[in-house]
């Protein structure tokens, strides 16, 4: 059997392969084969599930973004501008909780990852398609719980749920913790699915050394998801029980310890930061090679640094607690380990810049976002070094400096990478092109608006402006107002993006199967792809970044592997050695 021989772990095998050139603008695609709302809601197709996640994430992003604009508007003046302090506290809590749990965590892995991962593996689907759909509905149920909380007293604890405030709060803490608890299972199941898929579903010829870096990143992310998320689940369960039964584990008056909650919480929530950013790294590696038409520089350095970040990321959670009163021993060790995680991140950045050297660089929109990413994320990284050093952190902890830092990392990093990914894979996902000129204007607005919003926050933070403040002293007014103005520009930028993507969906130009000339396996499928991704079993001889080799050598599939609804043009038959 050809399939058995094609085992990637096997030795040199001779395969019968054919050249399959993807047909342009196919009539039958995953979008047209099954139609109607019901076919979407009950689909087990990873592509449709990915798009449903993308839709939900976009919805929550707009909700969280609207909250952010309201918060910024309130901060135009000290004291009350238009909402009360309690409302303000609820808004920043919800902004944080929605953006972290409903947007950033699922954004790249669950939305783009679901769509792209099986295609980059040459698989028909993820390992457990039904489980995949289940994860999506678990996400929806988690969202419903959170909405119940919204309608019912809201939540005012901050997204960190610190005890004892969260055990005393009169808002609906339980609904939200249960919501996030449920949401956690969605994340766990997605991670489980991805690990099994990457291990067991690789197309013939995809060895670990030929795995696209996007998949290395998703693999590292999945490992963090399965190791960290269960601890969040138990933390939230303990917090819920603390409120229901007065368990005492986090209650100082019963001999418990509120700081222990912070350990529990950050054991998940610090690695969660890497759940958010590491998949972004994957997208950057894909886009930067495609638009420089060049082999990635330091494949193994980038691949293994993802795993290194995933591992070291588990050992640094206490840097959120330098001022909390944790022991000096712990503080010292956490500070030291925190710096170590900076190194693999730095290695990645420098490898990407080195990839540009002697490339053939085309500044299309995804590439512009990569440049924005490299600039903003570097700033986020350097300010992270600042916050990791003990003496400086004592001064900067819980000020706007921290707020600016994590927005540079999470928004300047993850969200910009997500935008790069959406623009990069948009033709593949929808079969349509978007307006390149409008897209570039959008990117410019985002870049300007973002820096205008968050650069002043660095300054007012180190001047001493604490975070989560409804009111502020007069000396910070000018910084707050600049920041608010910037956030409006940012908002306009996102609206523009939504507008031209919507236009593209409705009346966009039809996209070719490989508009960017990428060597990635996902681009050897039609745009949009077939229901089963490929109409043949792809065979991979070269790595995904072998731009020095002609395109024809990437368009291979097992001979005689039509699945019935394919319509590839057979060109010729070759004998190729795969290992």
């Amino acid at each position, binding site marked *: 059997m050809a399939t058995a021989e094609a085992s990637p772990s096997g030795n040199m095998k001779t395969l019968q392969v054919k050249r399959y050139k993807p047909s342009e603008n196919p009539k039958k695609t995953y979008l047209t084969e099954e139609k109607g709302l019901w076919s979407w809601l009950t689909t087990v197709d990873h592509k449709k599930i990915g798009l449903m996640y993308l839709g939900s994430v976009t919805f929550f992003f707009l909700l969280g973004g609207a909250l952010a604009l309201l918060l910024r508007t309130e901060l135009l003046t000290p004291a009350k501008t238009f909402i009360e302090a309690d409302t303000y506290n609820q808004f920043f809590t919800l902004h944080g909780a929605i953006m972290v749990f409903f947007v950033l965590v699922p954004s790249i892995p669950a939305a783009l990852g679901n769509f792209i991962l099986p295609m980059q593996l040459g698989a028909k689907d993820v390992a457990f398609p039904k489980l995949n759909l289940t994860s999506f509905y678990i996400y929806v149920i988690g969202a419903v719980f959170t909405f119940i909380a919204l309608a019912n007293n809201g939540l005012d604890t901050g997204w960190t749920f610190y005890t004892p405030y969260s055990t005393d709060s009169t808002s609906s803490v339980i609904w939200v913790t249960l919501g996030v608890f449920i949401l956690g299972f969605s994340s766990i199941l997605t991670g489980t699915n991805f690990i099994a898929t990457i291990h067991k579903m690789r197309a013939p010829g995809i060895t670990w050394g030929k795995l696209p870096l996007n998949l290395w990143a998703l693999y590292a992310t999945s490992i963090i998801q399965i190791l960290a998320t269960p601890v969040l689940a138990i933390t939230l369960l303990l917090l819920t029980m603390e409120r229901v039964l007065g368990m005492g584990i986090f209650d100082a008056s019963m001999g418990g310890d509120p700081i222990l909650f912070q350990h529990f919480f950050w054991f998940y929530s610090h690695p969660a930061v890497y759940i958010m950013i590491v998949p972004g790294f994957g997208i950057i590696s894909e886009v930067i090679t495609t638009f420089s038409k060049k082999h990635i*520089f330091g494949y193994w350095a980038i691949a293994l640094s993802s795993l290194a970040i995933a591992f070291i990321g588990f050992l640094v959670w206490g840097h959120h607690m330098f001022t909390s009163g944790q022991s000096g021993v712990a503080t010292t060790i956490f500070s030291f380990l925190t710096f170590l995680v900076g190194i693999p991140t730095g290695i990645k950045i420098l490898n990407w810049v080195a990839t540009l050297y002697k490339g053939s660089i085309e500044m299309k929109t995804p590439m512009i976002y990569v440049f924005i990413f490299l600039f903003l994320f570097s700033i986020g990284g350097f300010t992270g070094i600042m916050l990791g050093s003990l003496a400086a952190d004592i001064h900067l902890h819980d000020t706007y400096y921290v707020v600016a830092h994590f927005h540079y990392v999470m928004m300047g990093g993850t969200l910009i990478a997500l935008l790069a990914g959406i623009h990069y894979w948009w033709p593949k996902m929808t079969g349509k092109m978007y307006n390149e000129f409008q897209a570039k204007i959008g990117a410019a607005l985002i870049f300007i608006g973002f820096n205008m919003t968050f650069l002043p926050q660095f300054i007012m933070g180190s001047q001493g402006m604490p975070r989560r403040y*409804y009111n502020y002293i007069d000396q910070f007014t000018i910084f707050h107002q600049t920041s608010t103005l910037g956030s409006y520009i940012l908002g306009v930028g996102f609206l523009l993006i939504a507008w031209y993507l919507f236009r593209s969906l409705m009346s966009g130009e039809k996209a070719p199967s490989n508009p960017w000339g990428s060597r990635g396996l996902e681009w050897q499928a039609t745009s949009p792809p077939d229901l089963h991704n490929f109409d043949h079993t792809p065979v991979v001889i070269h790595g995904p970044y072998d731009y020095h080799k002609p395109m024809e050598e990437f368009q291979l599939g097992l001979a005689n592997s039509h699945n019935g609804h394919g319509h590839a043009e057979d060109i010729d038959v070759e004998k190729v050695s795969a290992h």
Partner: protein
Amino acid sequence: MGSLFDFMLPELKSPMTGATTDALMGFIHIVSFIILAGVTVAMIYFAIKYRRRSDDDKTPLITHNNKLEITWSVIPLLLVFIVFGWGYKGWLNLKSVPDNAYEIQVSAYKWGWTFSYENGAQVGNEVHVPAGQPVKLVMRSEDVIHSFFVPDYRIKQDVLPNRYTYVWFQAEEAGESQVFCTEYCGTSHSDMLAKVIVHTPEDFENWLSEQSSGGGGTPAERGENLITLQGCVTCHSVDGSQKIGPSFQGLYGREETMSDGSTITADENYIRESILDPGAKIVEGYQNQMVSYEGRLSDDDISDIIEYIKTLEE
């Protein structure tokens, strides 16, 4: 450059605690800026120099360069070691309170601060301190977690409901500095402000004596009353004589050997714990016969008792 840092940071009013922080922040900012500029310039230079000229552009196959990888791993590693060591040094200084520090008790609650002085004076949301002398704040919270932050002194410490935490600083000149609460604590979190008011030492003495001493005398006096009223003296002597429990005389700051062989320096947290949870740590040679005073003594009472114990020197 100097003016840029003045723009970034508020004027430093406690160089003893903040000088390292400022220097370190300056160092990280400069190094980061240089590297960031290098990366950005390289990116933009490459994007222009190697822009795509035709769709058939050939690019060279450069897969990796181990020397380069090692270089740009080791140099940043050395840099972050410097940053770590520097930050650690500054932090140790923040944790090491000078021996001659003037002590003030701080109680944080939703949403305000109470500062208590040795003579019984209590002030809300204003802490008066002498210039040129280290001041130690011993802090506790009545309810949720708060955090005491003075940007001008570069100090910050969370204030906890179950144990004492402390900060210290030394303001060099008379003046005022802003105190913020930096751990989110509810509705009026952003109004939980206070001022540090620095007097010259003479003015401070005058101010302190002007303050009418609070109800029932100084904290130490109230503490003395309490230990008689609560019956502590039945088991704990105040003159060093041997009774059922260890004597209070010279207890504060004494190194005690526990029944499990460990040693503990009796500080505020230890005494408080021994009052609330007597069985937690037993001094070697004694039996656990005491009941918890939880609910019988308020946090203020316990602080008063500790103040009294401090006065009982050997």
